């Protein structure tokens, strides 16, 4: 129950599709979504495979709660081997597509091989068809969505790549419902490499749960808690994700100017409050969400941009804002829209441009390479370079490789704010020690969404911890990483654990939804740890070692010069051994035999 029990295997090389049953009893071990997809990928591909070759696979994965009324459960994950990092990648997105995929009859879509020419997949109530998409190649996400609704069904939901994915931009994402993104690690480039332009789904099949009344009452309980949560209903619903920006900025955890400084004087101009006073048009929720952190913005006095678009999120306000030294919301909205339409990760794109700005200001690159002058605070540059990056035009072809490869090309990889070649997010590892540890050990390269230690380090949830101290951060990182793996895999939005669901609630939903009588919190968390270790095993087989569990030299060696984090560096060397220890890994960061036995791996 709560699953369709079906996988659609799509062989793009031979243009064949095949529906398969899968053993839903595996829910108890891998939950679903990210967990099940990791198992499929681990079992089916060589981790050393070239990410952009036909031998890589691309998996769209829903969770057991996706498409139910469990609040904020409208998520799916795109799992593949990343062309940006070379690690396993799992990018998560909401919107309407994920639930519709299940209503259309499938829990998982597994794409294999490479289509000889551009195609899209159309699924209607279990029936799948691979169709020509030659004339869609070169079109942005918004137009692709509109055209495919006309060609298939007005109620179809679309997931696609923009030009960036087609052109194998290493930070390309998969965009669904026009504005939502499975954003990180370049999963869109993998989709583009397979000549798969889009997936359109429409379904009128229902999703049943095992114990209806228990499930229903649990929905009421969690909705009530979300409605009473100051963080979720007060902050996220009222001001969107950027509602936390001022707090983070004032806490000494907000980097700026390619992380050369911590703290951004113009922060209040790019905050959730500032957005509400300027370009905010309406709040928006993903499918089945009781938080509605999404923002519809618009009203730019520039005909090139549509009247309304979704965003910007907190991360984008930082990557294109503070990290590029920009405090102009209008410019950030423009860059955000281009990223959405071209299909590019706003975090990586902004941080890559910020890196280029530092390279330019230090005289390492010049007008000759870039084609124009660029410096921190340049509002025109962030927009122009974003478009070039997505299209791989001129200097954009260099930017399209991400910050690390760009900086390495010019002999200064230390200026790239990346871990395992993926750009860092909007939390400063010197100001929040645990976030540094999480970046260093994240299985898809630097990422705040793998383990949000900020919950404890800034917001005191679930319990407060000193952000400046390395003490106990190994334990904290492991706890939030394992929980997040479980939350993702269930099909829930990560935000729900900050005042909505307790881990026990998630376990209870799976118990009454899927119908696993003895499912409980312990099994859920154990599954999260299992998933984390399986991702780690994939990366070890791909050739990663403990030497890759590190941070940019700036975070480790350059003490913060100002603000509440003044004088701090990230003390990764103190945290990493503790982390490996609590994980049951050896000194080389490899899971021990005992740990693997315990996790049944």
């Amino acid at each position, binding site marked *: 129950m709560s699953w369709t029990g079906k996988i659609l295997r799509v062989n793009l090389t031979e243009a064949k599709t095949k529906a398969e049953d899968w053993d839903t009893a595996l829910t108890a071990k891998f939950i679903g979504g990210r967990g099940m997809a990791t198992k499929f990928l681990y079992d089916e591909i060589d981790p050393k495979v070239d990410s952009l070759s036909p031998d890589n696979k691309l998996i769209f994965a829903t969770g057991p709660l996706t*498409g*139910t009324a469990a609040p904020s459960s409208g998520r799916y994950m795109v799992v593949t081997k990343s062309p940006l990092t070379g690690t396993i990648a799992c990018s998560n997105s909401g919107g309407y597509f994920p639930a519709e995929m299940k209503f259309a009859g499938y829990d998982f879509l597994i794409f294999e091989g490479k289509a000889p020419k551009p195609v899209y997949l159309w699924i209607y109530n279990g029936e799948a068809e691979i169709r020509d998409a030659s004339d869609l190649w070169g079109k942005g996400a*918004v137009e692709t969505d509109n055209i495919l609704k006309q060609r298939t069904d007005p109620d179809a939901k679309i997931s696609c790549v923009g030009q960036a994915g087609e052109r194998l931009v290493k930070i390309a994402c998969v965009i669904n419902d026009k504005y939502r993104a499975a954003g990180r690690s370049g999963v869109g480039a993998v989709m583009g490499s397979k000549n798969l332009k889009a997936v359109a789904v429409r379904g009128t099949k229902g*999703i*049943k749960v095992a114990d209806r009344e228990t499930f229903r009452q649990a929905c009421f309980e969690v909705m009530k808690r979300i409605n009473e949560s100051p963080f979720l209903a007060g902050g996220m619903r009222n001001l969107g994700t950027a509602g936390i920006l001022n707090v983070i900025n004032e806490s000494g955890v907000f980097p700026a100017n390619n992380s050369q400084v911590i703290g951004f004087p113009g922060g209040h101009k790019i905050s959730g409050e500032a957005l509400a006073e300027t370009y905010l048009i309406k*709040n928006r929720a993903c499918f089945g*969400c009781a938080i509605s952190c*999404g923002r519809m913005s618009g009203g730019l006095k520039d005909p090139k941009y549509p*009247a309304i678009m979704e965003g910007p999120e907190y991360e984008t306000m930082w990557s294109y804002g503070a990290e590029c030294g920009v405090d102009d919301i209008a410019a950030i909205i423009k860059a955000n829209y281009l990223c959405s339409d071209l299909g590019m990760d706003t975090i990586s794109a902004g941080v890559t441009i910020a890196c280029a700005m530092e390279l330019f200001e230090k005289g390492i690159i010049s007008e000759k390479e870039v084609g124009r002058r660029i410096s921190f605070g340049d509002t025109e540059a962030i927009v122009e370079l974003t478009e070039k990056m997505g299209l791989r035009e001129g200097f954009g072809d260099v930017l399209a490789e991400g910050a690390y490869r760009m900086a390495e090309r010019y002999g200064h990889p230390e200026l790239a704010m990346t871990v395992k070649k993926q750009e860092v997010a909007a939390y400063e590892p010197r100001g929040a020690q645990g976030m540094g540890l999480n970046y260093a050990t994240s299985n898809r390269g630097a990422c705040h969404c793998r383990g949000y230690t900020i919950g404890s380090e800034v917001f005191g949830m679930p319990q407060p911890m000193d952000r400046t101290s390395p003490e106990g951060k190994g334990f904290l990182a492991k706890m939030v990483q394992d929980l997040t793996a479980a939350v993702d895999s269930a099909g829930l939005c990560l935000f729900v654990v900050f005042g909505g669901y307790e881990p026990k609630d998630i376990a209870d939903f799976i118990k009454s939804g899927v119908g696993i009588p003895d499912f409980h919190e312990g099994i859920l968390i154990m599954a999260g740890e299992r998933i984390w270790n399986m991702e780690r095993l994939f990366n070890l087989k791909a050739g990663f070692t403990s030497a890759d569990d590190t941070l940019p030299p700036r975070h480790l060696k350059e003490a913060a010069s100002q603000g509440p984090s003044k004088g701090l560096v990230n003390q990764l060397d103190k945290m990493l051994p503790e982390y490996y220890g609590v994980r049951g890994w050896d000194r080389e960061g490899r899971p021990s035999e005992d740990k693997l036995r315990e996790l049944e791996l």
Partner: protein
Amino acid sequence: MAKMLAIDPKKCTSCRLCEQACSFITKGEFNPARSRIQVAIFPEEGIWIPMSCTQCDDPMCTMVCPSGALKPKDPETGLVALDENICVGCKMCTMACPFGAVVYDAQKGVADKCDLCNGDPECVKFCVYGALEFKEEDIGVKAKRRALAEILKDSYKEVRV
């Protein structure tokens, strides 16, 4: 005075939990396609409007119903009731309703419309944003209804091809 389902599109976030709630309580499964309330979404205009039966005072569905399955509005409950046992599945009501609020449920082989959950609408309970309320018809609500009609008017223009 009878209560009505009052809809405020301004508070709606397009989460569609109402569709989930309705299909779950009336069909036993999560299935927006079979929900009696559905949110019309215009992403590029930033407009989302929950659409359901308005329980007309002078219901056209009842007027055209040949079998007597659809009843006149009950002044006590405010409900235009459908008796599924009498319905012959002719679909006349689906053609007559200007809101598209009466549909034909192919699985059950009869018409399907909002029954206000016997005076305790499930969609209202799932609407955390307060866009749906079940309250007495009063002058304020009528003014709001008029305001909604103004918005609907534009939507109708769009779909009238």
